[in-house]
């Protein structure tokens, strides 16, 4: 019921007027910002990605999370030294130790430039110059294990800190692409560098985060797309996953009950249905029951929200299942022709009932028009006399209610020979 103007979904945008004092303050802030920015660019130009620069990017990104170049600088800081190094030729999780003891923030840039060199790390030397025989190799293997574990722990800390860093930025700018993409990159590192149980845990928390973001703004499409990606990863073999389709379907049900106008939730729902039914091994009877339940649900929704486009889209999605299912069976492929006709007729009738109370809802007339034609299409015939009369009538209502689209109505009139 709240005003939903603009892409901010009813969350008010505040406009501010400035006093002279505020203007001076702003000038100061701009000066500081530019200085910060110059510093970061200066270091990046010299390929200096030391921890100091890392700290500078933190400051700058807090002021301006949209500055994607600076996110890249930050990534480089991580790869260049804050995160553990994979050894050349071996998989990242089995990385050999670096020449500096621990890659934490206190080391100076000198150490990093040396670690980038091609100097042979001492560990490798001891392998070849130590005593021959299994003992030295065992010791070595143990040391490798230890350092690998240490690396993973260190990486985990760093990566978790990075995720934490982006949270306040996300809360303030929930639709900033760069923040989302940085989180994704970090999470990718999580899969590559950390043991599966740890990685899985972090990704599950990520799913929790998208739920929270979608609570704050249920129609944040970034969050929905992001959620789908997170779910995909959680289901993937890399994270030893299994299907989340039931809980995701339940999630759309919850979101819809909180806000019927949630286009993204209905859309997600429609995308989940094929896999949902397959995984349930739904037989024809189960599919029919499911179809009817969805029809009831959307019917209840349209009953209270006849002006809502997202609801009509979903209803149409269900109707197309009846009409097109030969080509694209989604829900219930085994309906007989009679059943399809019966469902369509029933829907057309109950939608007509809505006109008793909502005679100015243009989307109702559109639906009646479309579905009557679907019916004819299904039965491979032209509209009969009564249907033609109805179609003309509904078109007349549409012309009155939506004069801006007169061109469209005129086209329909012509295409279906409905000119008065």
């Amino acid at each position, binding site marked *: *019921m*709240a005003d939903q103007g603009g892409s901010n979904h009813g969350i008010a945008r505040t406009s501010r007027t400035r006093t002279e004092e505020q203007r001076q303050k702003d000038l100061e802030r701009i000066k500081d910002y530019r200085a910060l920015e110059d510093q970061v660019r200066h270091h990046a130009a010299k390929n200096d990605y030391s921890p100091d620069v890392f700290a500078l990017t933190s400051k700058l990104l807090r002021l301006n999370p949209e500055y994607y170049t600076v996110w890249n600088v930050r990534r480089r800081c991580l790869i260049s030294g804050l995160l553990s190094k994979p050894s050349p030729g071996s998989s990242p999780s089995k990385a050999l130790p670096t020449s500096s003891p621990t890659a934490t923030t206190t080391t100076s840039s000198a150490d990093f430039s040396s670690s980038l060199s091609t100097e042979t790390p001492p560990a490798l030397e001891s392998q070849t110059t130590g005593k021959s025989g299994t003992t030295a190799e065992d010791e070595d293997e143990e040391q490798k294990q230890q350092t690998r574990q240490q690396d993973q722990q260190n990486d985990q800390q760093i990566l978790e800190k990075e995720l934490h860093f982006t949270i306040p930025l996300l809360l303030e700018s929930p639709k900033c692409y760069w923040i989302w993409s940085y989180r994704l990159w970090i999470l990718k590192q999580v899969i590559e560098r950390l043991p599966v149980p740890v990685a899985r845990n972090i990704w599950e928390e990520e799913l929790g985060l998208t739920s929270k973001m979608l*609570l704050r703004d249920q129609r944040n499409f970034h969050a929905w797309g992001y959620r789908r990606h997170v779910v995909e990863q959680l289901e993937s073999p890399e994270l030893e996953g299994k299907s989340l389709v039931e809980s995701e379907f339940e999630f759309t049900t*919850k979101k819809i*009950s*909180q*806000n*019927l106008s949630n286009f993204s939730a209905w859309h997600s729902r429609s995308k989940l249905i094929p896999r949902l039914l397959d995984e349930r091994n739904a037989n024809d009877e189960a599919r029919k029951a499911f179809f009817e339940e969805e029809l009831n649900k959307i019917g*209840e*929704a349209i*009953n*209270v*929200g006849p002006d809502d486009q997202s609801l009509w889209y979903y209803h149409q999605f269900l109707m197309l299942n009846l009409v097109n299912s030969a080509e694209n069976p989604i829900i219930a492929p085994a309906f007989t022709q009679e059943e399809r006709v019966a469902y369509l007729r029933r829907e057309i009738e109950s939608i007509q009932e*809505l006109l*008793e*109370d*909502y005679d100015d809802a243009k989307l109702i007339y559109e639906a009646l028009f479309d579905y009557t034609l679907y019916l004819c299409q299904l039965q491979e015939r032209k509209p009969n006399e009564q249907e033609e009369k109805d179609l003309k009538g509904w078109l007349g209502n549409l012309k009155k209610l939506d004069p801006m689209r007169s061109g469209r109505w005129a086209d329909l009139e012509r295409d279906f020979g409905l000119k008065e």
Partner: protein
Amino acid sequence: MAMGSIGDTLWDVVICGTGLQQSLLALSLSRSGKNILHIDPNDYYGGAEAAFSLQEAESWVDRLATEDKGLFRSASITKPDVVGLSFPRAYSLALAPQLIHARSELLSQLVSSRAYRQVEFLAVGSFYIFKAPIGPEQQPSLVRIPSTREDVFSTTAISAKAKRGLMKFLRFVLDYDSPEQRDAWKPFADKPLMDFLQEHFKMDTELKTYIITLTLSLDGRINTKDGLFIVHRHLTSMGHFGPGFAALYPKWGGTSEIAQVACRAGAVGGAIYMLGAGIKSMDTATDEIELELTSGDKVKTKLLVRGDESVGDEPSISRLVAVVDSPLKTLFESTVDGAPTPCVAVVALPPGSLTTSGEANTDPVYVFAHSSGTGECANGQSVLYLSTMATSNSKDILSRSLESLLFAVDRDRVPQCLYQLHYEQAAGVKQSRLDGLILDLPGPSLSLLLDDASLNHVREAWKKVVGDAVDDAEYMVFTDREPVDDDDYE
């Protein structure tokens, strides 16, 4: 203000009484630099909107027994022979429990005056209708009133056709102030809203009850103009301060807490406070009044502001305050993800719904259920405030309503009543009255919803004190005394 006898100053205003209106006046004047003396004959703040510990309630009842005039009467306390009542100060029973819509003018003023920071606001949750058992085998039940589109979608209690009717009405109300809609309801403006709903929307009894309940109209006959205003405010308040609720309730005693916070602000602004001091006698001259206080002090003031304590024309109400030994969890469930847990729930027993032994109620009975989250009772308990029009059998109606409600909430382990306070309150005078240098603010409101109209009288009193030199736009608009980090108040 230098320390000295209060008789030495020529006060700009003496405010008598610390009820909500007088306290808001003190708040509005807290930055004016005026010399303000704020007294109250009671030894507690809040006046007719006070919140009592059990001890204070007892004293109050005793005192009323000796007085035979005034707005409150027929007060009595019953303590059933049931174990569980905690120590007296564990309770803070509100004399005038009122809901405050999120979009009410009061909240805007509390925000602009910065006083809101001192108050902890709790969410008011669901509104229920009590449904009497239909047959001998049936159980009484509580049905939630749907007030958002999603509520209407989810409820199984109404037919599809009725839902459409309700949606049409909700859409109408949201737009009721537009010229189109005005034409429809203007002819009914002073007639009961019930009639308008019947005539214009052909609403059935059930839906009419839902709508009237949202107005909390004590006689059920609120007129169309006022009724539409309240429903509109309820609907637009929904979600205004957070998901899932349309009204707020201040912790620690409701309106009394606001009165106390307002007085505190007055004191910080330099006003002198004296509890237990009333006006014994007064002597009026052309530009000042001399008051003799019950404390013995004699003070001179340019203006005296009091609350009118005379009985008005409108009907009285009968009220029952009951402490029960259950948290009544089912009443306080949050229905929306991310919504705060409500601490107040509303239950209405429509006329005729009380079918237990005795007469049915001819007026609605409203129940405000408060969880211990309000700070008004001990943990594990709840306070129920029942209100109805005062009639010859209203006390009995309230008792039986309490019983029926408790049975409907939990028939397996019916909550026991630990304490009951009953009283009647007469309607006060509705208008302000200025007689020379004495301004009497209207009497306390009997409304269950905090009424914005009452705020106008405070504003007028403020204007009287500050005079024409001050811009009206400055009313209740203050800056923080110290820099405050708003994050502290999340």
